[in-house]
């Protein structure tokens, strides 16, 4: 069906092309419209999931709430409510103290990189278990949070 439509467009284009410059303009308009629709569809697919929990990062060097509970496959969104740069880092290899980061077996480490004032980050948790994460610049000042991921209900 789509191929047939394109065929008609192209044939029509060829016809117009033989006529005058207006033809070119029309072809371009049609092509751009088709492209824009395709891009729009892809963006729609990638639109972030609605988070199951939202955690604020503050000037008091806290994650609020410090502990959230979600189900496997759900997403947590972190939002900066701070003038400072923070990170959301669930990676024991990047922790100054081993006890500040923990992942359940089979879970992959995650790290937001620098989140500027007003910025945000989100992560989808697939493996159930308890995740302990921290902020790289403020780990020493106790900026640590916990995500508890329960098995997904069927």
């Amino acid at each position, binding site marked *: 069906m789509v191929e047939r439509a394109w065929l008609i467009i192209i044939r029509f284009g060829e016809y117009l092309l033989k006529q005058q410059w207006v033809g070119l303009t029309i072809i371009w308009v049609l092509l751009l419209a088709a492209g824009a629709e395709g891009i729009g569809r892809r963006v729609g697919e990638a639109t972030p999931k609605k988070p199951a929990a939202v955690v604020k990062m503050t*000037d008091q060097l806290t994650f609020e709430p410090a502990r959230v509970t979600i189900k496997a496959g759900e997403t947590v969104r972190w939002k900066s409510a701070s003038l*400072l740069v923070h990170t959301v880092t669930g990676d024991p290899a990047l922790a100054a103290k081993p006890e500040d980061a923990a992942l359940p077996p089979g879970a992959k480490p995650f790290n937001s990189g*620098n989140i500027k*004032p007003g910025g945000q980050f989100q992560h989808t948790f697939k493996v159930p278990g308890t995740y302990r994460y921290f902020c790289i610049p403020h780990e*020493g000042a*106790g900026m640590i949070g916990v995500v508890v991921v329960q098995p997904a209900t069927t």
Partner: protein
Amino acid sequence: MKRKHVFRRNVIIFVPGLLLGLIAGLVLSAGREAPAVTRQASGNMAAIKMLQALAPARGYLQAHRGVQDPLGLLGGPVKVRIRQSEGGVFVALPDHRRLDKDVFGTPRLPRAYGGTPGINGVPPILRDVQESRYTVMKKKSPFGDKYIVMADGKLRLEAVDATATDAAQSHDSVRMEASWRDKKGNTYTVQCCQMLATHGVEFPTFGGVVTNHLLHGFTRLGTALMPTEFTYFAFWGMGSVSKNGKVLDHPRLVHGMLTEYVRTQGYRLAFDREVTPTRQQFHLMVAPFKPVMKEGRFIPSPVKTGFTLPNGVELPFWHVMFENLEVKGRRG
């Protein structure tokens, strides 16, 4: 950095540390009250002189401050570059410092009491005691747990550590500009150094710049009110304090240092056993006192910061922490 860096030959008589102002302020305000208290004040002054004479580095400094051609660092000069390009800063507010037993000892066996009170040690009389333990320093200082966050912290610093020891001259250099912005949109800037402290009076300044050294706390290099901290880079010199591009105070003593992380839960200033060795922070200090060159001592002089505290008083110092850093250092 608009101001061209001046290669410093000048000798600054330099008492590093911060609380002389507070102590002298106490003495001066006491002196205004009554003649009887004036006698007590002169007694305090004599006590302060006795304490100053006990500064542990006096002999070392006497041997070094006249050196005209000091030796260089083993392995050659170290060049340092530090930047913060985004993110806020922590601005310390006056507070009572909790006293670490590892630094200050116990009432039975006090440590770290010599030198200008607070600048170097803290005399026992200024320490609160509870159940045979020291608790806090009675007077407020720039070294405590209270802080506010300000936006848009920017730091640009380039420095060379070439000269090893304290001396009359130095080949060290520092060019620094640091700024941050308050809620009302005012921008505060500190620039340094038109001159470096080529030697100290109460403790060494290593030509003005020092790298890879232990400072503060039990070392008695700088105030004992800061915890003992490994310091990758530090400087002491004379600079300027501005607000919205207008110089408010100049010249002022400026001290900066890149250290391991010395804040703990809730941004409390750490005790020695609480520091995080594998994280870094940069501290900037503009001290509330000024040197009297001829006398080799300092007089209290609150910094004109242009920033008013909620109680209506102008913040008399800047003690600002930068924690989103890019650091580069190399030899040669």
